[in-house]
Protein backbone atom coordinates (compact mmCIF):
# COMPACT_ATOMS: atom_id res chain seq x y z
CA UNK A 1 0.00 0.00 0.00
CA UNK A 2 2.83 2.37 0.66
CA UNK A 3 3.88 2.05 -2.96
CA UNK A 4 0.57 3.36 -4.15
CA UNK A 5 0.71 6.33 -1.82
CA UNK A 6 3.98 7.66 -3.15
CA UNK A 7 2.99 7.07 -6.67
CA UNK A 8 -0.23 8.95 -6.09
CA UNK A 9 1.36 11.83 -4.30
CA UNK A 10 3.94 12.58 -6.99
CA UNK A 11 2.10 15.21 -9.02
CA UNK A 12 0.50 16.63 -5.89
CA UNK A 13 3.91 17.27 -4.37
CA UNK A 14 4.96 19.04 -7.55
CA UNK A 15 1.85 21.19 -7.42
CA UNK A 16 2.40 22.11 -3.79
CA UNK A 17 6.02 22.97 -4.52
CA UNK A 18 4.86 25.27 -7.31
CA UNK A 19 2.33 26.96 -5.05
CA UNK A 20 4.98 27.58 -2.43
CA UNK A 21 7.35 29.00 -5.02
CA UNK A 22 4.57 31.23 -6.33
CA UNK A 23 3.70 32.52 -2.88
CA UNK A 24 7.33 33.24 -2.12
CA UNK A 25 7.86 35.11 -5.36
CA UNK A 26 4.85 37.32 -4.95
CA UNK A 27 2.34 37.36 -2.09
CA UNK A 28 -0.36 38.41 -4.53
CA UNK A 29 -0.16 34.90 -5.92
CA UNK A 30 -2.42 33.58 -3.20
CA UNK A 31 -4.91 36.43 -3.45
CA UNK A 32 -8.38 35.18 -4.42
CA UNK A 33 -8.39 37.34 -7.53
CA UNK A 34 -5.29 35.64 -8.87
CA UNK A 35 -6.36 32.15 -7.88
CA UNK A 36 -9.71 32.77 -9.51
CA UNK A 37 -7.97 33.82 -12.72
CA UNK A 38 -5.69 30.82 -12.77
CA UNK A 39 -8.40 28.32 -12.01
CA UNK A 40 -10.85 29.76 -14.51
CA UNK A 41 -8.22 29.68 -17.23
CA UNK A 42 -7.41 26.08 -16.43
CA UNK A 43 -11.00 25.18 -17.02
CA UNK A 44 -10.78 24.90 -20.84
CA UNK A 45 -7.76 22.65 -20.93
CA UNK A 46 -9.05 21.01 -17.79
CA UNK A 47 -12.37 19.92 -19.25
CA UNK A 48 -10.63 18.66 -22.36
CA UNK A 49 -7.95 16.89 -20.35
CA UNK A 50 -10.57 15.05 -18.29
CA UNK A 51 -12.01 13.68 -21.52
CA UNK A 52 -8.50 13.01 -22.83
CA UNK A 53 -7.82 10.92 -19.74
CA UNK A 54 -10.52 8.49 -20.82
CA UNK A 55 -9.29 8.41 -24.40
CA UNK A 56 -5.68 7.82 -23.40
CA UNK A 57 -6.63 5.28 -20.75
CA UNK A 58 -8.43 3.16 -23.33
CA UNK A 59 -5.28 3.24 -25.41
CA UNK A 60 -6.23 6.05 -27.82
CA UNK A 61 -5.13 9.59 -28.49
CA UNK A 62 -6.75 12.76 -29.81
CA UNK A 63 -4.63 15.43 -31.45
CA UNK A 64 -7.59 17.30 -32.85
CA UNK A 65 -9.08 18.79 -29.69
CA UNK A 66 -7.50 22.23 -30.04
CA UNK A 67 -8.63 22.70 -33.63
CA UNK A 68 -11.95 21.15 -32.77
CA UNK A 69 -12.48 23.74 -30.04
CA UNK A 70 -11.62 26.53 -32.49
CA UNK A 71 -13.96 25.15 -35.11
CA UNK A 72 -16.82 24.65 -32.67
CA UNK A 73 -16.29 28.13 -31.26
CA UNK A 74 -16.45 29.40 -34.83
CA UNK A 75 -19.70 27.69 -35.75
CA UNK A 76 -21.24 28.58 -32.39
CA UNK A 77 -20.48 32.24 -32.95
CA UNK A 78 -21.74 32.11 -36.51
CA UNK A 79 -24.91 30.36 -35.40
CA UNK A 80 -25.60 32.89 -32.69
CA UNK A 81 -24.87 35.83 -34.95
CA UNK A 82 -27.19 34.38 -37.56
CA UNK A 83 -29.89 33.96 -34.96
CA UNK A 84 -29.78 37.50 -33.60
CA UNK A 85 -32.04 38.94 -36.34
CA UNK A 86 -34.54 36.16 -35.72
CA UNK A 87 -34.56 35.48 -32.02
CA UNK A 88 -33.00 38.68 -30.80
CA UNK A 89 -30.37 39.40 -28.21
CA UNK A 90 -31.47 37.25 -25.32
CA UNK A 91 -30.67 34.12 -23.36
CA UNK A 92 -32.67 32.01 -25.75
CA UNK A 93 -30.17 32.73 -28.50
CA UNK A 94 -27.28 31.98 -26.21
CA UNK A 95 -28.82 28.72 -25.12
CA UNK A 96 -29.29 27.69 -28.74
CA UNK A 97 -25.65 28.61 -29.28
CA UNK A 98 -24.67 26.42 -26.36
CA UNK A 99 -26.65 23.59 -27.84
CA UNK A 100 -24.87 24.07 -31.15
CA UNK A 101 -21.54 23.86 -29.33
CA UNK A 102 -22.49 20.68 -27.48
CA UNK A 103 -23.92 19.08 -30.60
CA UNK A 104 -20.84 20.09 -32.58
CA UNK A 105 -18.53 18.62 -29.96
CA UNK A 106 -20.41 15.37 -29.76
CA UNK A 107 -20.57 15.08 -33.53
CA UNK A 108 -16.86 15.80 -33.94
CA UNK A 109 -16.04 13.23 -31.27
CA UNK A 110 -18.31 10.73 -32.95
CA UNK A 111 -16.60 11.38 -36.26
CA UNK A 112 -13.13 10.78 -34.82
CA UNK A 113 -14.32 7.76 -32.91
CA UNK A 114 -16.11 6.25 -35.88
CA UNK A 115 -13.06 6.58 -38.12
CA UNK A 116 -10.92 4.99 -35.44
CA UNK A 117 -13.20 2.15 -34.44
CA UNK A 118 -15.05 1.42 -37.66
CA UNK A 119 -12.42 2.17 -40.28
CA UNK A 120 -9.68 0.97 -37.88
CA UNK A 121 -7.21 3.73 -38.58
CA UNK A 122 -4.61 4.66 -36.00
CA UNK A 123 -5.95 7.38 -33.68
CA UNK A 124 -2.78 9.39 -34.26
CA UNK A 125 -3.45 9.59 -37.98
CA UNK A 126 -7.20 10.13 -37.76
CA UNK A 127 -6.89 12.95 -35.31
CA UNK A 128 -3.89 14.46 -37.05
CA UNK A 129 -6.10 14.54 -40.12
CA UNK A 130 -9.11 16.04 -38.38
CA UNK A 131 -6.82 18.49 -36.62
CA UNK A 132 -5.81 19.87 -40.01
CA UNK A 133 -9.37 19.79 -41.25
CA UNK A 134 -10.93 21.70 -38.34
CA UNK A 135 -8.12 24.22 -38.25
CA UNK A 136 -8.50 24.90 -41.96
CA UNK A 137 -12.24 25.11 -41.74
CA UNK A 138 -12.21 27.73 -39.02
CA UNK A 139 -9.63 29.77 -40.93
CA UNK A 140 -11.78 29.50 -44.00
CA UNK A 141 -15.00 30.37 -42.19
CA UNK A 142 -13.34 33.44 -40.74
CA UNK A 143 -11.71 34.32 -44.05
CA UNK A 144 -8.37 34.22 -42.37
CA UNK A 145 -9.49 36.70 -39.76
CA UNK A 146 -11.56 36.58 -36.61
CA UNK A 147 -15.16 35.52 -36.12
CA UNK A 148 -16.68 37.83 -33.53
CA UNK A 149 -19.80 37.42 -31.51
CA UNK A 150 -22.48 40.07 -31.83
CA UNK A 151 -21.62 42.66 -29.20
CA UNK A 152 -25.05 42.63 -27.60
CA UNK A 153 -24.90 38.88 -27.11
CA UNK A 154 -21.37 39.26 -25.92
CA UNK A 155 -22.41 41.52 -23.07
CA UNK A 156 -25.17 39.17 -22.08
CA UNK A 157 -22.99 36.09 -22.34
CA UNK A 158 -19.90 37.46 -20.58
CA UNK A 159 -21.00 36.60 -17.02
CA UNK A 160 -20.89 32.91 -17.92
CA UNK A 161 -17.14 33.22 -17.85
CA UNK A 162 -16.62 36.10 -15.48
CA UNK A 163 -19.24 35.62 -12.76
CA UNK A 164 -20.08 32.91 -10.35
CA UNK A 165 -20.33 32.46 -6.63
CA UNK A 166 -17.97 35.10 -5.32
CA UNK A 167 -14.58 34.51 -6.86
CA UNK A 168 -15.50 30.93 -7.67
CA UNK A 169 -16.58 31.62 -11.22
CA UNK A 170 -18.67 29.36 -13.42
CA UNK A 171 -15.72 27.88 -15.30
CA UNK A 172 -14.21 26.87 -11.98
CA UNK A 173 -17.48 25.37 -10.83
CA UNK A 174 -17.96 23.53 -14.12
CA UNK A 175 -14.43 22.21 -14.09
CA UNK A 176 -14.79 21.03 -10.51
CA UNK A 177 -18.05 19.24 -11.23
CA UNK A 178 -16.71 17.61 -14.39
CA UNK A 179 -13.52 16.56 -12.63
CA UNK A 180 -15.44 14.98 -9.78
CA UNK A 181 -17.86 13.29 -12.14
CA UNK A 182 -14.96 12.12 -14.30
CA UNK A 183 -13.07 10.70 -11.36
CA UNK A 184 -16.26 9.02 -10.23
CA UNK A 185 -16.91 7.60 -13.68
CA UNK A 186 -13.41 6.25 -13.95
CA UNK A 187 -13.44 4.66 -10.51
CA UNK A 188 -16.99 3.69 -9.90
CA UNK A 189 -18.79 2.96 -13.12
CA UNK A 190 -18.76 0.11 -15.52
CA UNK A 191 -17.69 2.49 -18.29
CA UNK A 192 -14.57 3.52 -16.41
CA UNK A 193 -13.72 -0.04 -15.59
CA UNK A 194 -14.10 -1.04 -19.22
CA UNK A 195 -12.00 1.88 -20.39
CA UNK A 196 -9.19 0.70 -18.15
CA UNK A 197 -9.60 -2.92 -19.19
CA UNK A 198 -9.46 -2.06 -22.89
CA UNK A 199 -6.35 0.04 -22.40
CA UNK A 200 -4.75 -2.69 -20.40
CA UNK A 201 -5.45 -5.47 -22.89
CA UNK A 202 -8.18 -5.09 -25.44
CA UNK A 203 -8.28 -8.76 -26.31
CA UNK A 204 -8.98 -9.69 -22.73
CA UNK A 205 -11.71 -7.09 -22.64
CA UNK A 206 -13.23 -8.46 -25.82
CA UNK A 207 -13.13 -12.01 -24.43
CA UNK A 208 -14.90 -10.72 -21.32
CA UNK A 209 -17.87 -9.52 -23.34
CA UNK A 210 -16.85 -5.88 -23.06
CA UNK A 211 -18.13 -3.89 -26.03
CA UNK A 212 -14.64 -2.77 -26.97
CA UNK A 213 -15.53 -0.71 -30.04
CA UNK A 214 -18.53 0.82 -28.31
CA UNK A 215 -16.54 1.90 -25.27
CA UNK A 216 -13.76 3.29 -27.46
CA UNK A 217 -16.27 5.24 -29.50
CA UNK A 218 -17.95 6.48 -26.34
CA UNK A 219 -14.65 7.77 -25.00
CA UNK A 220 -14.13 9.91 -28.11
CA UNK A 221 -17.70 11.13 -27.96
CA UNK A 222 -17.25 12.01 -24.29
CA UNK A 223 -14.11 13.93 -25.14
CA UNK A 224 -15.93 15.69 -27.97
CA UNK A 225 -18.73 16.64 -25.61
CA UNK A 226 -16.25 18.07 -23.15
CA UNK A 227 -14.59 20.05 -25.93
CA UNK A 228 -18.07 21.41 -26.68
CA UNK A 229 -18.53 22.32 -23.03
CA UNK A 230 -15.12 23.98 -22.92
CA UNK A 231 -16.13 26.02 -25.96
CA UNK A 232 -19.31 27.15 -24.21
CA UNK A 233 -17.11 28.63 -21.51
CA UNK A 234 -14.49 29.91 -23.93
CA UNK A 235 -16.72 31.94 -26.21
CA UNK A 236 -17.85 34.40 -23.50
CA UNK A 237 -14.26 34.94 -22.47
CA UNK A 238 -12.98 36.33 -25.75
CA UNK A 239 -16.18 36.54 -27.78
CA UNK A 240 -14.32 35.41 -30.85
CA UNK A 241 -12.67 32.57 -32.67
CA UNK A 242 -9.92 32.51 -35.26
CA UNK A 243 -7.34 30.28 -36.83
CA UNK A 244 -5.14 30.74 -33.79
CA UNK A 245 -7.74 29.71 -31.23
CA UNK A 246 -6.84 26.62 -29.30
CA UNK A 247 -3.48 26.13 -30.98
CA UNK A 248 -1.47 23.51 -29.06
CA UNK A 249 -4.28 22.79 -26.61
CA UNK A 250 -3.98 19.15 -27.59
CA UNK A 251 -0.39 19.04 -26.49
CA UNK A 252 -1.22 20.77 -23.23
CA UNK A 253 -4.12 18.44 -22.54
CA UNK A 254 -2.08 15.33 -23.27
CA UNK A 255 0.79 16.66 -21.18
CA UNK A 256 -1.59 17.30 -18.26
CA UNK A 257 -2.91 13.76 -18.48
CA UNK A 258 0.57 12.29 -18.46
CA UNK A 259 1.90 14.57 -15.77
CA UNK A 260 -1.06 13.38 -13.73
CA UNK A 261 0.23 9.83 -13.84
CA UNK A 262 -1.86 8.26 -16.59
CA UNK A 263 0.30 6.19 -18.91
CA UNK A 264 0.37 7.14 -22.58
CA UNK A 265 0.02 3.48 -23.48
CA UNK A 266 -3.21 3.17 -21.54
CA UNK A 267 -4.52 0.90 -18.84
CA UNK A 268 -4.76 3.09 -15.79
CA UNK A 269 -6.48 6.43 -15.74
CA UNK A 270 -6.26 8.95 -12.98
CA UNK A 271 -8.67 11.81 -13.50
CA UNK A 272 -7.70 13.64 -10.36
CA UNK A 273 -4.06 13.35 -11.40
CA UNK A 274 -5.03 15.02 -14.66
CA UNK A 275 -6.62 17.86 -12.72
CA UNK A 276 -3.38 18.30 -10.83
CA UNK A 277 -1.49 18.20 -14.11
CA UNK A 278 -3.68 20.92 -15.58
CA UNK A 279 -3.18 23.09 -12.52
CA UNK A 280 0.57 22.57 -12.67
CA UNK A 281 0.65 23.70 -16.29
CA UNK A 282 -1.41 26.82 -15.79
CA UNK A 283 0.41 27.78 -12.60
CA UNK A 284 3.71 27.66 -14.43
CA UNK A 285 2.46 30.33 -16.82
CA UNK A 286 1.09 32.38 -13.98
CA UNK A 287 4.27 32.14 -11.93
CA UNK A 288 6.38 33.22 -14.88
CA UNK A 289 4.30 36.37 -14.92
CA UNK A 290 4.70 36.94 -11.18
CA UNK A 291 8.25 38.12 -11.32
CA UNK A 292 10.68 39.02 -14.07
CA UNK A 293 12.96 36.08 -13.65
CA UNK A 294 14.45 35.89 -17.07
CA UNK A 295 14.06 37.04 -20.61
CA UNK A 296 10.58 36.16 -21.79
CA UNK A 297 12.30 34.31 -24.62
CA UNK A 298 13.31 31.75 -22.04
CA UNK A 299 9.84 31.18 -20.61
CA UNK A 300 9.43 28.14 -22.80
CA UNK A 301 12.67 26.70 -21.46
CA UNK A 302 11.60 27.17 -17.85
CA UNK A 303 8.25 25.66 -18.63
CA UNK A 304 9.96 22.67 -20.18
CA UNK A 305 12.24 22.19 -17.21
CA UNK A 306 9.37 22.39 -14.73
CA UNK A 307 7.26 19.89 -16.67
CA UNK A 308 10.10 17.41 -16.68
CA UNK A 309 10.84 18.04 -13.00
CA UNK A 310 7.19 17.59 -12.04
CA UNK A 311 7.29 14.17 -13.60
CA UNK A 312 10.72 13.27 -12.24
CA UNK A 313 9.31 13.87 -8.81
CA UNK A 314 6.76 11.13 -9.21
CA UNK A 315 8.70 8.80 -11.45
CA UNK A 316 11.71 8.72 -9.17
CA UNK A 317 9.55 7.37 -6.39
CA UNK A 318 8.00 4.87 -8.65
CA UNK A 319 11.18 3.65 -10.25
CA UNK A 320 12.57 2.56 -6.91
CA UNK A 321 9.34 0.84 -6.02
CA UNK A 322 8.97 -1.10 -9.20
CA UNK A 323 11.21 -3.95 -10.01
Amino acid at each position, binding site marked *: MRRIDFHLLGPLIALIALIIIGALLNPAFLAPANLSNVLARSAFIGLIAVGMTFVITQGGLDLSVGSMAAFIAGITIMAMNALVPITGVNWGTIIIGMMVAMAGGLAAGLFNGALITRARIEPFIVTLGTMGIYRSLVTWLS*DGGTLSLDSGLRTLYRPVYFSGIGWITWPIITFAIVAILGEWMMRHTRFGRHVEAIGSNDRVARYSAVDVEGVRLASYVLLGGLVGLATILYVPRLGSASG*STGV*LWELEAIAAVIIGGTMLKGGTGRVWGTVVGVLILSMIDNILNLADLVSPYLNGAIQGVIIVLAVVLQREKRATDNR
Partner: protein
Amino acid sequence: LAQTEGEAKTIGVAIPSATHGFMGGLNWHAQNTIDRLGETYPNLSFVLATAGDSAKMVSDIEDMMATRNIDALVVLPFESEPLTAPVKSVKDAGKFVVVVDRGLSEEGIEDLYVAGDNAAFGRVAGQYFADNLESGQKIVVLRGIPTTLDNERVEAFQAAIEGSGIEVLDMQHGNWNRDDAFNVMQDYLAKYPEIDAVWAADDDMATGVLEAIAQAGREDEMWVIGGAGMKEIVQRIMDGDPQLPVNVTYPPAQISAAIEMAALNFVSSAPMAGRYIIGSQLITPENAEQYYFPDSPF
Protein backbone atom coordinates in the same frame (compact mmCIF):
# COMPACT_ATOMS: atom_id res chain seq x y z
CA LEU B 1 -2.70 63.17 -14.29
CA ALA B 2 -0.30 64.91 -11.99
CA GLN B 3 2.42 62.52 -11.04
CA THR B 4 5.20 63.38 -8.66
CA GLU B 5 8.55 62.28 -9.95
CA GLY B 6 10.04 59.41 -7.99
CA GLU B 7 6.82 57.64 -7.17
CA ALA B 8 7.20 53.96 -8.08
CA LYS B 9 5.17 52.95 -11.10
CA THR B 10 4.82 49.69 -12.98
CA ILE B 11 4.19 49.50 -16.68
CA GLY B 12 2.97 46.28 -18.21
CA VAL B 13 3.85 45.43 -21.80
CA ALA B 14 1.92 42.68 -23.57
CA ILE B 15 2.99 41.75 -27.10
CA PRO B 16 2.78 38.70 -29.36
CA SER B 17 5.73 36.35 -29.15
CA ALA B 18 8.50 36.34 -31.72
CA THR B 19 7.07 33.86 -34.19
CA HIS B 20 8.38 35.61 -37.26
CA GLY B 21 10.88 38.25 -38.22
CA PHE B 22 8.78 41.34 -37.77
CA MET B 23 7.55 40.28 -34.35
CA GLY B 24 11.09 39.31 -33.50
CA GLY B 25 12.19 42.83 -34.26
CA LEU B 26 9.32 44.20 -32.26
CA ASN B 27 10.23 41.99 -29.31
CA TRP B 28 13.82 43.16 -29.53
CA HIS B 29 12.84 46.81 -29.57
CA ALA B 30 10.47 46.31 -26.65
CA GLN B 31 13.10 44.62 -24.57
CA ASN B 32 15.69 47.22 -25.46
CA THR B 33 13.45 50.11 -24.63
CA ILE B 34 12.51 48.60 -21.32
CA ASP B 35 16.15 48.09 -20.37
CA ARG B 36 17.01 51.62 -21.34
CA LEU B 37 14.08 53.26 -19.58
CA GLY B 38 14.58 51.11 -16.51
CA GLU B 39 18.04 52.57 -16.15
CA THR B 40 17.02 56.13 -16.86
CA TYR B 41 14.06 56.12 -14.50
CA PRO B 42 14.77 53.97 -11.46
CA ASN B 43 11.28 54.53 -10.14
CA LEU B 44 9.74 52.80 -13.15
CA SER B 45 9.49 49.06 -13.37
CA PHE B 46 8.29 47.05 -16.33
CA VAL B 47 6.56 43.74 -16.85
CA LEU B 48 6.99 42.20 -20.28
CA ALA B 49 4.85 39.27 -21.36
CA THR B 50 4.72 37.65 -24.76
CA ALA B 51 1.84 35.52 -25.96
CA GLY B 52 1.33 33.00 -28.73
CA ASP B 53 -2.42 33.46 -28.92
CA SER B 54 -5.17 35.78 -27.77
CA ALA B 55 -6.14 33.67 -24.79
CA LYS B 56 -2.62 33.74 -23.41
CA MET B 57 -2.41 37.48 -23.93
CA VAL B 58 -5.64 37.99 -22.00
CA SER B 59 -4.25 35.79 -19.24
CA ASP B 60 -1.06 37.82 -19.14
CA ILE B 61 -3.03 41.04 -18.77
CA GLU B 62 -5.13 39.49 -16.01
CA ASP B 63 -1.96 38.45 -14.22
CA MET B 64 -0.46 41.91 -14.53
CA MET B 65 -3.57 43.35 -12.94
CA ALA B 66 -3.96 40.73 -10.23
CA THR B 67 -0.37 40.25 -9.16
CA ARG B 68 1.78 43.10 -10.42
CA ASN B 69 -0.57 45.97 -9.83
CA ILE B 70 0.42 47.77 -13.00
CA ASP B 71 -0.22 51.48 -13.49
CA ALA B 72 -0.07 51.43 -17.24
CA LEU B 73 -0.51 48.89 -19.98
CA VAL B 74 1.14 48.91 -23.37
CA VAL B 75 -0.49 46.29 -25.54
CA LEU B 76 -0.17 45.10 -29.11
CA PRO B 77 -3.42 43.16 -29.32
CA PHE B 78 -2.96 39.69 -30.73
CA GLU B 79 -6.40 40.06 -32.23
CA SER B 80 -8.70 43.02 -31.93
CA GLU B 81 -12.00 41.51 -30.89
CA PRO B 82 -10.90 39.23 -28.10
CA LEU B 83 -8.63 41.81 -26.51
CA THR B 84 -11.12 44.65 -26.51
CA ALA B 85 -13.01 43.74 -23.36
CA PRO B 86 -9.95 42.82 -21.27
CA VAL B 87 -8.15 46.04 -22.22
CA LYS B 88 -11.29 47.97 -21.51
CA SER B 89 -11.45 46.55 -18.01
CA VAL B 90 -7.85 47.65 -17.46
CA LYS B 91 -8.87 51.12 -18.53
CA ASP B 92 -11.93 51.02 -16.30
CA ALA B 93 -9.66 50.22 -13.37
CA GLY B 94 -8.10 53.63 -13.95
CA LYS B 95 -4.89 52.54 -15.64
CA PHE B 96 -3.10 54.33 -18.46
CA VAL B 97 -3.54 52.35 -21.67
CA VAL B 98 -1.47 52.46 -24.82
CA VAL B 99 -2.58 50.38 -27.76
CA VAL B 100 -0.03 49.59 -30.42
CA ASP B 101 -0.44 48.75 -34.07
CA ARG B 102 -3.68 46.80 -34.01
CA GLY B 103 -6.73 48.82 -32.99
CA LEU B 104 -9.31 47.54 -30.56
CA SER B 105 -12.76 46.92 -31.92
CA GLU B 106 -14.24 49.66 -29.79
CA GLU B 107 -13.21 53.28 -30.20
CA GLY B 108 -11.92 55.46 -27.41
CA ILE B 109 -10.73 52.91 -24.90
CA GLU B 110 -7.07 53.73 -25.08
CA ASP B 111 -5.35 56.89 -23.93
CA LEU B 112 -2.84 56.62 -26.66
CA TYR B 113 -2.73 54.79 -29.97
CA VAL B 114 0.53 54.15 -31.75
CA ALA B 115 0.44 52.22 -34.96
CA GLY B 116 1.83 51.39 -38.30
CA ASP B 117 -0.59 51.53 -41.16
CA ASN B 118 -1.37 48.08 -42.53
CA ALA B 119 -3.55 49.38 -45.31
CA ALA B 120 -0.84 51.77 -46.37
CA PHE B 121 1.66 48.94 -46.24
CA GLY B 122 -0.30 47.10 -48.88
CA ARG B 123 -1.25 50.21 -50.77
CA VAL B 124 2.28 51.59 -51.12
CA ALA B 125 3.51 48.27 -52.42
CA GLY B 126 0.54 47.94 -54.76
CA GLN B 127 1.14 51.45 -56.03
CA TYR B 128 4.71 50.60 -56.89
CA PHE B 129 3.57 47.57 -58.85
CA ALA B 130 0.95 49.59 -60.67
CA ASP B 131 3.49 52.24 -61.55
CA ASN B 132 6.23 49.92 -62.70
CA LEU B 133 4.46 47.14 -64.52
CA GLU B 134 2.59 47.23 -67.76
CA SER B 135 -0.86 45.94 -68.30
CA GLY B 136 -0.81 42.16 -68.77
CA GLN B 137 2.36 41.56 -66.82
CA LYS B 138 2.18 38.78 -64.31
CA ILE B 139 2.88 38.70 -60.61
CA VAL B 140 2.62 36.22 -57.77
CA VAL B 141 1.87 37.05 -54.14
CA LEU B 142 2.96 35.39 -50.90
CA ARG B 143 0.62 36.08 -48.04
CA GLY B 144 1.39 35.90 -44.34
CA ILE B 145 -0.22 33.86 -41.63
CA PRO B 146 -3.98 34.03 -42.14
CA THR B 147 -5.00 36.95 -39.90
CA THR B 148 -7.02 40.15 -40.12
CA LEU B 149 -3.82 42.08 -40.53
CA ASP B 150 -2.80 40.01 -43.51
CA ASN B 151 -6.26 40.51 -44.99
CA GLU B 152 -6.04 44.30 -44.61
CA ARG B 153 -2.69 44.42 -46.34
CA VAL B 154 -3.73 42.19 -49.20
CA GLU B 155 -6.99 44.01 -49.76
CA ALA B 156 -5.24 47.35 -49.92
CA PHE B 157 -2.69 45.88 -52.28
CA GLN B 158 -5.37 44.54 -54.57
CA ALA B 159 -7.21 47.84 -54.48
CA ALA B 160 -4.04 49.66 -55.46
CA ILE B 161 -3.32 47.52 -58.51
CA GLU B 162 -6.92 47.47 -59.63
CA GLY B 163 -7.30 48.80 -63.14
CA SER B 164 -3.63 48.52 -63.90
CA GLY B 165 -4.18 45.33 -65.87
CA ILE B 166 -1.61 43.45 -63.83
CA GLU B 167 -2.43 39.78 -63.65
CA VAL B 168 -2.12 38.16 -60.22
CA LEU B 169 -1.29 34.57 -61.03
CA ASP B 170 -1.47 33.12 -57.55
CA MET B 171 -1.67 33.97 -53.87
CA GLN B 172 -0.57 31.39 -51.31
CA HIS B 173 0.34 31.62 -47.66
CA GLY B 174 4.04 31.78 -46.91
CA ASN B 175 3.25 32.36 -43.23
CA TRP B 176 5.90 35.10 -42.86
CA ASN B 177 8.34 32.23 -42.78
CA ARG B 178 11.47 31.84 -44.90
CA ASP B 179 11.19 28.10 -45.38
CA ASP B 180 7.53 28.15 -46.27
CA ALA B 181 8.09 31.05 -48.66
CA PHE B 182 10.99 29.20 -50.27
CA ASN B 183 8.79 26.16 -50.88
CA VAL B 184 5.88 28.16 -52.21
CA MET B 185 8.13 30.14 -54.53
CA GLN B 186 9.79 26.98 -55.83
CA ASP B 187 6.36 25.71 -56.72
CA TYR B 188 5.35 29.01 -58.33
CA LEU B 189 8.45 28.85 -60.46
CA ALA B 190 7.67 25.31 -61.48
CA LYS B 191 4.11 26.21 -62.28
CA TYR B 192 4.45 29.56 -64.08
CA PRO B 193 6.93 29.92 -66.89
CA GLU B 194 6.40 33.64 -66.88
CA ILE B 195 6.52 35.79 -63.76
CA ASP B 196 7.45 39.46 -63.88
CA ALA B 197 7.39 40.39 -60.21
CA VAL B 198 6.74 39.03 -56.76
CA TRP B 199 5.09 40.69 -53.82
CA ALA B 200 6.44 38.83 -50.80
CA ALA B 201 4.82 41.19 -48.30
CA ASP B 202 7.52 40.60 -45.72
CA ASP B 203 11.30 40.53 -45.82
CA ASP B 204 11.57 37.12 -44.24
CA MET B 205 9.48 35.72 -47.02
CA ALA B 206 11.43 37.78 -49.56
CA THR B 207 14.61 36.07 -48.39
CA GLY B 208 13.15 32.66 -49.13
CA VAL B 209 11.74 33.85 -52.42
CA LEU B 210 15.09 35.24 -53.60
CA GLU B 211 16.76 31.95 -52.81
CA ALA B 212 14.20 30.00 -54.82
CA ILE B 213 14.59 32.39 -57.76
CA ALA B 214 18.36 32.08 -57.60
CA GLN B 215 18.09 28.32 -57.61
CA ALA B 216 15.92 28.42 -60.71
CA GLY B 217 18.36 30.87 -62.30
CA ARG B 218 15.56 33.30 -63.11
CA GLU B 219 17.02 36.32 -61.31
CA ASP B 220 16.86 38.51 -64.40
CA GLU B 221 13.27 37.77 -65.05
CA MET B 222 11.53 39.26 -62.04
CA TRP B 223 11.95 41.61 -59.14
CA VAL B 224 10.74 41.16 -55.59
CA ILE B 225 9.15 43.56 -53.15
CA GLY B 226 9.27 42.54 -49.52
CA GLY B 227 8.30 44.66 -46.61
CA ALA B 228 9.17 45.96 -43.13
CA GLY B 229 12.75 46.91 -43.91
CA MET B 230 14.92 44.03 -42.74
CA LYS B 231 18.50 45.19 -42.52
CA GLU B 232 19.93 42.73 -45.06
CA ILE B 233 17.30 43.71 -47.57
CA VAL B 234 17.79 47.43 -46.97
CA GLN B 235 21.49 46.90 -47.48
CA ARG B 236 20.85 45.36 -50.87
CA ILE B 237 18.57 48.24 -51.82
CA MET B 238 21.33 50.63 -50.85
CA ASP B 239 23.63 48.66 -53.12
CA GLY B 240 21.18 49.12 -55.95
CA ASP B 241 20.30 45.45 -56.44
CA PRO B 242 18.00 45.35 -59.48
CA GLN B 243 16.16 42.38 -58.00
CA LEU B 244 15.13 44.41 -55.00
CA PRO B 245 14.20 47.84 -56.31
CA VAL B 246 12.37 49.10 -53.25
CA ASN B 247 10.91 48.09 -49.90
CA VAL B 248 8.00 49.25 -47.78
CA THR B 249 8.53 50.15 -44.15
CA TYR B 250 6.53 48.88 -41.29
CA PRO B 251 8.66 49.81 -38.36
CA PRO B 252 8.94 47.35 -35.51
CA ALA B 253 10.33 50.26 -33.50
CA GLN B 254 6.83 51.65 -33.07
CA ILE B 255 6.69 49.67 -29.83
CA SER B 256 9.58 51.75 -28.52
CA ALA B 257 7.65 54.91 -29.13
CA ALA B 258 4.66 53.47 -27.35
CA ILE B 259 6.58 52.35 -24.28
CA GLU B 260 8.47 55.61 -24.11
CA MET B 261 5.29 57.63 -24.20
CA ALA B 262 3.81 55.47 -21.46
CA ALA B 263 6.89 56.17 -19.36
CA LEU B 264 6.80 59.87 -20.10
CA ASN B 265 3.25 59.93 -18.87
CA PHE B 266 4.58 59.22 -15.39
CA VAL B 267 7.88 61.07 -15.37
CA SER B 268 6.95 64.23 -17.18
CA SER B 269 4.06 66.52 -16.72
CA ALA B 270 3.22 66.62 -20.41
CA PRO B 271 -0.20 65.09 -21.05
CA MET B 272 0.05 62.02 -23.21
CA ALA B 273 -2.92 61.31 -25.43
CA GLY B 274 -3.88 60.94 -29.02
CA ARG B 275 -3.13 58.83 -32.06
CA TYR B 276 0.26 58.40 -33.65
CA ILE B 277 0.19 56.68 -36.99
CA ILE B 278 3.55 55.83 -38.43
CA GLY B 279 2.94 55.67 -42.12
CA SER B 280 4.52 53.15 -44.43
CA GLN B 281 7.30 54.67 -46.50
CA LEU B 282 8.83 53.46 -49.69
CA ILE B 283 12.48 52.66 -49.18
CA THR B 284 14.37 53.45 -52.34
CA PRO B 285 18.08 53.24 -53.10
CA GLU B 286 18.16 57.00 -52.55
CA ASN B 287 16.73 57.05 -49.04
CA ALA B 288 17.70 53.54 -47.91
CA GLU B 289 20.49 54.71 -45.62
CA GLN B 290 18.11 56.25 -43.14
CA TYR B 291 16.27 52.94 -42.74
CA TYR B 292 19.37 50.89 -42.10
CA PHE B 293 19.86 49.71 -38.46
CA PRO B 294 22.79 47.29 -38.41
CA ASP B 295 22.37 46.44 -34.70
CA SER B 296 18.77 45.36 -34.81
CA PRO B 297 18.23 41.62 -35.11
CA PHE B 298 15.71 42.36 -37.82
